[in-house]
Structures are given as structure tokens and as C-alpha cells.
């Protein structure tokens, strides 16, 4: 490869960026927001790096993260320049180095720019920063370098036939090394908290409180609340009270005040997410170091770790954003400054890089790479052990919720949760004593003879004690089963234990509410309680096999399928349970067994109540009308395709096809914004055109878009605009499949263009048309709601409201929960009608064409 001169241009661009304006500061007047002063010339990036943010304004010097930004920008720029220079040399390894350089510089520059953009929110009210091209140019240049080096690495060079870093061993070690590096970063400062001297009076006291906090500290919850620490060390002589309302008066931005308190209160408990990340990193590093272990294990783990860690980063960043300059006036600029270092970001980068190298290693491995780290005989038991351990954890988590209400009243006044941990520590009964409502008032009092606290407590005590010993029993059984599993004990014994535990859990669930007075307290099991049942059953099932090979293939496949079935059950079948609302006088938030059963009241309500009947018929008319219009013109795409096919110029045909399908890929929200601009009453091109033609009065323009006139036609127009080209694709594909000899033969017989279209093309498209027509007939009630939702307004609501939209409007949109049962009843009828229509269409299709459409 030749010397790459464009790389030189890249370096020159970077040098030029040093002198281009990067930042400008304006000072506003406090009163009316007008610019009171402006620093005459913009500050260039070079000056920014050399002299720091103080070059712009002295107060910025004390913003510590701006100093970090300076370092980040400086190093980032240097690295980007180095990357650009390295690109000048056409060696593969050097290009690889350029890749790393530019990647790292991109991260650094990005962080630097992030700090600057973020500054805008955190300046005092009267200062305003605007950022110039000089700040963004290096980022772009670094990105270009990255892309370029990545692209040139892809092009294999003739002298090095071997792909880059094809050594799988080396890659594995690199991968493990990177994971360890990411782990090491856990112990380095993730963010710094520093305190201005003014808050304590003496600099020494402030210095005591300044400290670095590592991810490790956050992980273990060792980071102390700054406020508490200040009190403890007696550094904070005049503590500012923690009342948000008090600070709000000084701030115009509530978020930032929140940020301040985040520094003070965040991360005081241990962070399970970070623990998981650390564990995954460690495991993947260890697995990566053991030769002949399947690399997929470590790759999966490390990718998980990278993703989890990345989700933790935004949380850390908000700590940095809540810096005191952000929020309050000068007197209060005093509490503490949290500043995120770039190290957590680097940890994410390392983890991600480790995953990538791991994958590369797998790709280039020439040894047979599927070597499971677990001995074959252990694998299946490993699954069983995992399941039973998860079940154990589920048992420790919240198991039941008790909701309390006054006798005879349906409203839930208080809820209490008892968990397995409570049961273990024998505290379950305490959780249920004297429930208080949201205002802190006890729900039951001695004055009410129907439910005195003692009466309620008698029931809850019984329930709590039963829950306690049952949970104990289940825990012991499961634990014993797990230990026996690990110890390779008799599998019958293990299975018996786990099944017994299942039964105990089942009893716990069934007996939850027994003994409680239904009028005052109702107990419900939690998801964890339900989840422990299948977990235990499957653990028992797996413990039955000594080795994976013993598991018959059909069950193995079924087990692989199981998570998917579970998802289908959870998201498609479980909602059907909600159909029961339609038969109750459903009150939001009450458990099902306290709802009042009303039978088919809501169904008859639909047609007997005149107001409802009117609405139902109106929305049905709209639904059928608009569906009908679409149905009546469903031949349009077919005609479109037939005529498009008559065009002989390939380029033109392609052009038409590409641009007519484009509208299909934008959302209805976007279609509506297009409509709003094109048809705006005063400025849109449509009304301008009408004014030109004299059809529209300029002084009193017609509100075409919002009016309810001919709304069906308008809706039909928009859906045709969106769907015409897209619908034609299938017909075009079908046309391409027509046998050419048919055309040849017809032409020999003297058929002209029309005859060919009428007698060959159209008939061969009819089956496709028929199937689509049948499907759209069965979907006549489901015309979706997005389109009508975005176009609806008070003026056209009467004529645009389709069934789906009506249901949405009377329930979720109006924030009322009283009509949930009624809406569910409508939904049930709609589904039933749709399914009937579908089956009839299918039946019809079978009769007419001998083929089913489903």
C-alpha cells in the first residue's frame, strides 16, 4: 500500500483545530436575560489546553471537572494526532496501533466535549457558554481516523496472508489481561468529591472531607454520605439542611439540586450490579487463562460485564453533573463537588475490548474449541444446582403482600410485605403489626368495634407464624437438596427433597390468606413465590439425570424451547387473565377476590345504555368506514405494480420504487408532522396554493388539517400515501415470477400491451391479491390506532375515533380507571369478532381456492 497522503491532511486538520474558536463566553444581565457582556474573541482549543478553563473566566478555574476536561482534550488531541501520523505508514501493525490510538482518543475527546457541553447547565444563571467548531473538529477527525484504520485493516495485504493477530493463544491472553485491567480499574478513583474551603471555614477541615471513591467502594457500599461524614469528623461546622425546598429557592433548576443531594446520599448501600460485574470480570479472566476452556464462556461473561458496567455509568455521570455550581446561588455554592474521572469509562472500554479480542480468538482458534469447562457428568447437575440456588434466593425475597382495608370498604389503605428473610429472622409478625396508611396514621383504632388492632393482629399473627415455619421448612429442604446434589448423593433422595420443598411452597401459597379476616386484610403471593415453584420442579427434574447424555433429545430440545414458551405465556397468554375484569365491577388496585362480580353487565351496558350505544355505533361506523375505504382500494398497489412494470427504463423504475417505499418507513408521528407543515393553515404550501387559486381567503384561512370534514377520505389518503409503494413490492415480486413464455406465446398470437396486462399479468396476480384481501377482511376491526391517534383533535374526534382509539381514549388517556372493565369487555368482543372473521375468511378461501390463508 502506498503512503497515505490524506492522513497528512487529517493531521493538518487537527493542528488547525488548535487555532479555531472552541469556546465563547457570554455574560447575561440578570434582569432581562440580554447579553450584558461578551468576551471579545473566542478561545481556541490550543489556548484552552494550555491555560485551562481559567482563560475564559476565573470562576471556571475552580470547576474541577473543567480541569479534567482540559487533560482529556489535551491527551485526546495528542492521541488523535498520533493516530493520524501512524496512518501515514502503510504497515499493518502500525495501522492497528492507529486504531487503538484513535479509539482511545475518541473516548477521551468525547469525555472532554461532554464536560464542556454539560457545563452549560451548571453555570451560574448569568453566564452562557457557546461551543465552536474547534471543540468538535478533533472528535470528528478522531472518528475518521478510527473508521479509516478499521477499514484499512479489513483489506488484506498481499505480503501478510495471515489475518492480523491470528494467534488464538495470544488473543486469549490479551482478552484475559484486559478483563483483569478492567478489574484493576475498580480500585482506582471513579469519582472525586471535593469541598470548597468556604463550607467549613478552615481549609484543613475541607481537605479531610475530600476523597476519591473507587468503583470498589461503591460496590461494597463503603462510600459514606458526605454529609454524615462531615458531621462525624466535625468538619461541617454549619451544615446546610437537607431540605430540598429550601435549596430550591436558590436554584432555577430542580434537577441540579437533585444532583447535589445525590452526592450526599447516593451509594450508601452495597451495589449488587457492580458486584455482579466484578464477579463476571473475575470469572471470565480466570476462564480465559485456563487453556482449552471454551472461550464462549468467558466471552459471554465479559460481554455481560461490559453491558452491566455501561448501565452503571450514567448513574455515575449524574453524580458529576450535580456539581454545586450548577444549582444554587453563591452563598450555597458550598456543599460538595462530585467529579467523575474517566476511569469507569475506561473500565467499560477494557471490558468491551476484552470481549472483542475474545471473539477474535475464537474465530482464529485452530484447536477444537468446544471444550466445556465443566466435566460432562457434572454439567446437568450444575444446571440443577443453579436452579435450586435461584429458588433459594427467591425464597429469601419478598414472598407475600398483605393489603389492609377498613371493613366494608374496598379501598386499600395500607400494604405490608413479608419476605423470606423476615421469616428467617422471625420478624414476619412484626411487619404486619399496626399498619399505617400513607399519611402515617394507623389504619385501625380501638374506636371501631368491627376491627380493633387486636382483632386484626390475631389474624396476621397466625398468618405470619404459618408463613415463617413453612418458609423455614422449604429453605431447609431446598438447601439440603442442593448440598446433596453437590455431594453427588442418591438422586432419588435429592429429587424427593426438592419435590417436598415444592409441595411446601405450594402449601405456603395456598394457605396464605387463611385465618385472615377477608374484610380487613387480604394476602397475595409475590412473583418470587410463584417463580420458586417451577424452579424447584425443574431442579428436581434435572437432578434425575446423572449426565446430560442421559437426557433424551426430545426433552433437551423442549428445555431449550422452554424460555421462549415462557415468554409467550407471559406476554401473550397471561394477559388473557385480564379478560376476567370484564365480568367484575373492576376497581383498580384491589385483589381479584375482593372485586364485585357483575356477570355480563358490561356487555349489556354497551348496547342498553343509550350514551354508550351511541358511542359504540359511532366508533364502529368510523372503524368500518375507514377500513372499508382501504379495503375498497386495496387493488391500488396491484395496479401500481402492473403499470410500473410497463416502464422499460430500469433506472427510472428503481428510482420510483425506492422513493415510493420510503414513506412506509417513517412513523405516524412523523407523517403527522409532515402533514402539519404542508397543510398549516397560514403557512403551509397547500393553503398558499389555494390562496393563489382564490379558493382560500388569506385573511381567514381554512383549517384544513384539523377540521373534521371528510376525515375518512383524508385518513385514507395518508394511509395510501404511506403504504402504496410498499404494498406494490409484493406484486412486483409476483410479476417477476410469471413465466416469460406465456408472454412470448401471447405476443405471437398478436396480443398487444393491454391484452398482455389483462390476460396474463393481472390473472397471475389475483391469488396474491385474494390472500391479502382475505387477511385484511379479517382485520377489519383492527385498523390500529397510531394513525388516528396522531391525527385526532377535539374538532375531528367524532369522526376519527376508531375502536382501538376509543378504548384508549376512555381509559389510559383520560387517566381514569373506572372504565377498565367496560374497555376490556369491548376488547373481548373485538377479539372474538376478529377471530370469527379470520376463520370464515380462511374457510372461504379453502372453499374457493382449496388453499388456506393461515
Amino acid at each position, binding site marked *: 500500500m502506498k503512503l497515505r497522503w490524506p492522513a497528512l491532511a487529517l493531521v493538518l486538520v487537527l493542528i488547525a483545530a488548535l487555532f479555531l474558536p472552541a469556546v465563547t463566553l*457570554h455574560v447575561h444581565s440578570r434582569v432581562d*436575560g440580554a447579553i450584558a457582556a461578551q468576551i471579545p474573541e473566542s478561545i481556541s482549543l490550543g489556548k484552552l489546553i494550555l491555560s485551562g478553563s481559567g482563560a475564559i473566566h476565573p470562576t471556571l478555574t475552580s470547576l474541577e471537572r473543567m480541569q479534567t476536561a482540559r487533560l482529556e482534550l489535551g491527551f485526546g488531541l495528542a492521541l488523535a494526532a498520533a493516530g493520524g501520523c501512524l496512518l501515514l505508514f502503510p504497515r499493518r501493525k502500525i495501522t492497528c496501533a492507529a486504531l487503538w490510538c484513535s479509539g482511545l482518543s475518541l473516548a477521551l475527546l468525547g469525555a472532554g466535549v461532554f464536560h464542556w457541553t454539560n457545563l*452549560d447547565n451548571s453555570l451560574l444563571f448569568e453566564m*452562557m457558554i457557546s461551543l465552536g467548531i474547534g471543540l468538535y473538529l478533533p472528535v470528528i477527525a478522531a472518528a475518521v481516523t478510527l473508521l479509516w484504520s478499521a477499514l484499512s485493516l479489513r483489506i488484506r495485504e498481499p505480503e501478510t496472508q495471515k489475518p492480523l493477530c491470528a494467534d488464538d493463544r495470544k488473543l486469549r491472553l490479551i482478552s484475559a489481561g484486559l478483563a483483569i485491567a478492567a478489574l484493576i480499574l475498580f480500585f482506582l478513583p471513579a469519582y472525586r468529591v471535593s469541598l470548597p474551603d468556604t463550607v467549613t471555614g478552615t481549609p484543613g477541615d475541607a481537605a479531610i472531607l475530600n476523597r476519591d471513591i473507587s468503583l470498589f467502594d461503591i460496590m461494597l457500599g463503603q462510600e459514606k454520605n458526605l454529609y454524615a461524614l462531615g458531621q462525624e469528623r466535625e468538619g461541617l461546622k454549619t451544615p446546610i439542611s437537607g431540605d430540598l425546598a429550601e435549596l430550591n429557592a436558590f436554584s432555577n433548576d430542580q434537577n441540579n439540586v437533585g444532583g447535589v443531594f445525590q452526592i450526599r446520599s447516593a451509594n450508601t448501600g452495597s451495589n449488587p450490579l457492580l458486584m455482579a460485574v466484578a464477579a463476571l470480570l473475575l470469572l471470565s479472566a480466570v476462564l480465559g487463562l485456563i487453556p482449552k476452556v471454551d472461550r464462549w464462556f468467558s466471552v459471554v461473561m465479559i460481554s455481560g460485564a461490559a453491558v452491566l458496567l455501561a448501565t452503571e455509568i450514567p448513574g455515575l455521570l449524574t453524580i458529576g453533573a450535580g456539581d454545586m455550581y450548577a444549582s444554587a446561588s453563591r452563598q450555597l455554592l458550598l456543599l460538595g463537588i462530585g467529579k467523575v474521572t474517566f476511569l469507569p469509562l475506561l473500565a467499560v472500554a477494557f471490558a468491551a475490548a476484552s470481549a472483542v479480542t475474545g471473539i477474535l480468538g475464537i474465530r482464529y482458534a485452530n484447536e477444537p474449541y468446544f471444550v466445556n469447562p465443566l466435566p460432562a457428568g457434572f454439567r446437568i447437575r450444575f444446571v440443577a444446582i443453579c436452579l435450586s440456588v435461584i429458588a433459594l434466593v427467591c425464597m429469601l425475597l419478598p414472598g407475600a403482600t398483605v393489603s389492609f382495608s377498613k371493613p366494608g370498604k374496598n379501598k386499600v389503605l395500607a400494604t405490608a410485605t413479608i419476605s423470606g428473610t423476615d421469616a428467617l429472622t422471625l420478624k414476619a409478625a412484626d411487619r404486619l403489626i399496626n399498619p399505617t396508611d400513607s399519611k402515617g396514621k394507623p389504619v385501625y383504632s380501638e374506636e371501631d368495634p368491627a376491627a380493633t388492632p387486636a382483632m386484626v393482629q390475631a389474624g396476621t399473627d397466625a398468618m405470619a407464624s404459618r408463613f415463617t415455619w413453612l418458609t423455614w421448612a422449604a429453605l431447609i429442604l431446598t438447601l439440603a437438596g442442593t448440598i446433596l446434589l453437590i455431594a453427588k448423593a442418591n438422586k432419588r433422595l435429592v429429587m424427593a427433597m426438592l419435590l417436598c420443598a415444592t409441595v411446601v411452597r405450594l402449601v405456603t401459597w395456598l394457605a396464605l390468606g387463611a385465618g385472615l379476616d377477608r374484610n380487613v386484610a387480604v394476602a397475595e403471593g409475590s*412473583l418470587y413465590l410463584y417463580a420458586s415453584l417451577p424452579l424447584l420442579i425443574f431442579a428436581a427434574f434435572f437432578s434425575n439425570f446423572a449426565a446430560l447424555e442421559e437426557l433424551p433429545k*426430545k426433552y433437551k*430440545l*423442549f428445555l*431449550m*424451547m422452554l424460555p*421462549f*414458551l415462557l*415468554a*409467550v405465556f*407471559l*406476554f*401473550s397468554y397471561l394477559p388473557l*387473565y*385480564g*379478560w376476567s375484569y370484564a365480568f367484575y365491577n373492576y376497581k383498580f388496585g384491589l385483589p381479584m377476590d375482593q372485586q364485585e362480580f357483575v356477570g355480563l353487565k358490561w356487555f349489556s351496558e354497551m348496547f342498553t345504555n343509550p350514551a354508550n350505544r351511541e358511542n359504540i355505533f359511532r366508533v364502529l361506523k368510523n372503524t368500518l368506514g375507514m377500513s372499508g375505504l382501504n379495503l375498497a382500494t386495496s387493488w391500488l398497489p396491484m395496479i401500481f405494480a402492473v*403499470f410500473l412494470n*410497463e*416502464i*422499460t427504463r*430500469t433506472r427510472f423504475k428503481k428510482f420510483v420504487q*425506492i422513493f*415510493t*417505499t*420510503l414513506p412506509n*418507513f*417513517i*412513523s405516524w*408521528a*412523523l407523517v*403527522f*408532522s*409532515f402533514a*402539519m*407543515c*404542508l397543510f398549516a393553515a*397560514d*403557512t403551509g*404550501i397547500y393553503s*398558499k396554493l389555494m390562496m393563489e387559486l382564490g379558493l382560500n381567503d388569506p385573511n381567514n384561512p381554512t383549517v384544513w388539517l384539523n377540521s373534521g370534514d371528510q376525515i375518512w377520505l383524508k385518513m385514507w389518503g395518508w394511509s395510501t*400515501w404511506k403504504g402504496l*409503494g410498499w404494498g406494490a*413490492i*409484493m406484486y412486483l*415480486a409476483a410479476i*417477476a415470477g410469471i413465466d*416469460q413464455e406465456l408472454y412470448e406465446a401471447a405476443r405471437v398470437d398478436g396480443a398487444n400491451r393491454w391484452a398482455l396486462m389483462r390476460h396474463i399479468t393481472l390473472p397471475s396476480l389475483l391469488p396474491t391479491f385474494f390472500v391479502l384481501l382475505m387477511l385484511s377482511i379479517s382485520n377489519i376491526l383492527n385498523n390500529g390506532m*397510531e394513525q388516528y391517534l396522531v391525527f385526532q383533535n377535539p374538532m375531528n374526534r367524532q369522526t376519527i375515533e376508531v375502536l*382501538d382509539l376509543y378504548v384508549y381514549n376512555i381509559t*389510559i388517556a383520560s387517566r381514569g380507571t373506572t372504565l377498565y372493565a367496560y374497555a*376490556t369487555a369491548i*376488547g373481548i368482543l373485538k*377479539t372474538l369478532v*376478529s*377471530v370469527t372473521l*379470520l376463520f370464515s375468511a380462511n374457510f372461504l378461501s379453502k372453499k374457493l381456492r382449496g388453499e388456506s390463508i393461515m
Partner: protein
Amino acid sequence: MTAIDKKMHGRAGKRENRQKLSRGDIAFNIVNYTVFILITLACIFPFYYLLINTISDNEMVRLGKIQLLPQGIHLENYVQVLKIPGILDALFVSVARTVLGTLWTVGGCAFLGYLVTKKEMWLRKLWYRLIIITMYFSAGLIPWYMNLRMLGFLDNFWVYVIPGLVSPYNVILVKTFIEALPPSLEESATLDGAGYTRVFFSIIMPLITPILATLCIFSAVGQWNSFTDTMMLMPSGKFYTLQFLLYKYQNEASSLAALVRNTQDASALANVATKQTALSVRMTVAMVVTIPILLVYPFFQRYFVKGIMIGAVKG
């Protein structure tokens, strides 16, 4: 696309050479071309119109002077719109849900599609039907909402991703595609001792990339475009997506006015030409949402036909 095109154009080209165009043909062609040019223009024009209105002098836009050509070009609208608080977060959420949701759905449907081709599975037909039948019924809005609420998905980012694991239509597509592959490939791998997962990842996966690419496109576009889920499932205003913000800005004139005021404060040097108006903010946000689609559209455009063709052959 290309193969079909060649076939179509091959025929058309031949015909053109063979016979001379009659007068009727010429008239037909003129009408045909004109109609298609008009249709195409109707499809492109809104995009163009929005674009010129966002980059033109805002004062002239407000007066409705910009109709066909941009005037007083500036990019201030875009700079200011990106400064609206929440926009960048929404962009992040949109990108995250698009990427994660697509990977999750396509990965899940690919593997499930492979599993349901395995005849030896216990009660395969039953499970397959149970999955497919969900395509034809829905529980309705309220039960759906209450179910997600019960499962703790309200105000939760993962509601955009996790419920999409199984999409019956995609499963059918993948299944049909895999069934068309020669079974010998899989058999030989099984003889070499590869398990199901292994066969899927190293043999099936590379072979079904065309259909996976198509599924990726549809799923990604769907994820990027959806806003009703945000509207219903994020009551406390967390994890707003770009599309939803767009929808919201169109409907809430008051909040938009406040936003405009904010952005005006921020643009210290605001003059009339670049001053934000409610209209300009709306249009610019719409454009910001459209641009990613326009950018990737040329790349994925060629996968449509293939996907549609496979979709037409239903299993």
C-alpha cells in the same frame, strides 16, 4: 432485488428491440411516466419541504414564504434543538432500544425458528401452534397494560426490549427459510458430534443471514418508529424516546412555547432570522427523527424484496 430486476428488465428490453413503438404505445408511455413521476414527487416532496423549512430563515418560514426553495440558509435550528433538555437522553433511549430490541428479537426468533424445525422435539406441533396462534388474537389494551404493569414493566426501559422476544411472524419466516436448506449440512455436523446450539451457531446462522438481515431491518424500523408504548407505559416520564417527544411537541403547544423560550435564552446572539419559533422547533425535531432513517435507508433498501418474497411463502 437484482435478480428479479434483471429478469423483468430482460423481458422488457427484448420487447423494445423487437417491435417498433406504435403511436398508442407512445401516448401510453407518456401518461404512464407522468403519473409515476407525480406519485414519486408526492412521496419525496414532504421530506424536501420539511428540510428546506428547517434550514431557511425562520422569519420567512413563519410568514410562509418558503415553499419551493430554501432562502437564508442556516443550521441554527438544529444546534438549538439539540440543546433542548431531554433530547439527547431521548436520542440515547431510542438508539438503545433500537439496537438492543433488534438484537433480542432477531436472535430469539432465529433460534426459536431453528428449534421448531426439529421434528424430534417433545410435543413440537403443540408448542408451535401455541406460539403461532398468538398472532391471531390479542387480549386487548387494558389486559395488556395491566399485565405489563403486574410484571413490573411500567417505567422500565426493558419494556421496549424484553416482551418482543417471540414474534410469531418472524418465527414462521425463519422456520420456512431453514426448512428450505439442505438437511445434509446439519446431519454431517451432528455426526461430527455437534450439539443443537453448536449446529445453530456454526452452520445454520451463517446460512440464514439474508432472512436475518431482513428481520433486523423490520424490527429496527419498528423499534425506532414506535411511540405509543412510551405513551402508555412510561407514566412518570422516564425513558422517553425521540418519536414520543416528537409526538408530544406536536400536541402540547404550551410546553413547546416554554421550550422555545428556553432555547431562545440559550442562543445569545439570536436575531430574527435564526430565532426559534414553535413551528421551527417542531419541524426541526421531525427532521432530526427522520434523518437516521434517511441515512440508513439506501443501505437496507435492497433487502426489502427478499424479505417480502419469503414472507409471501407462508408456512
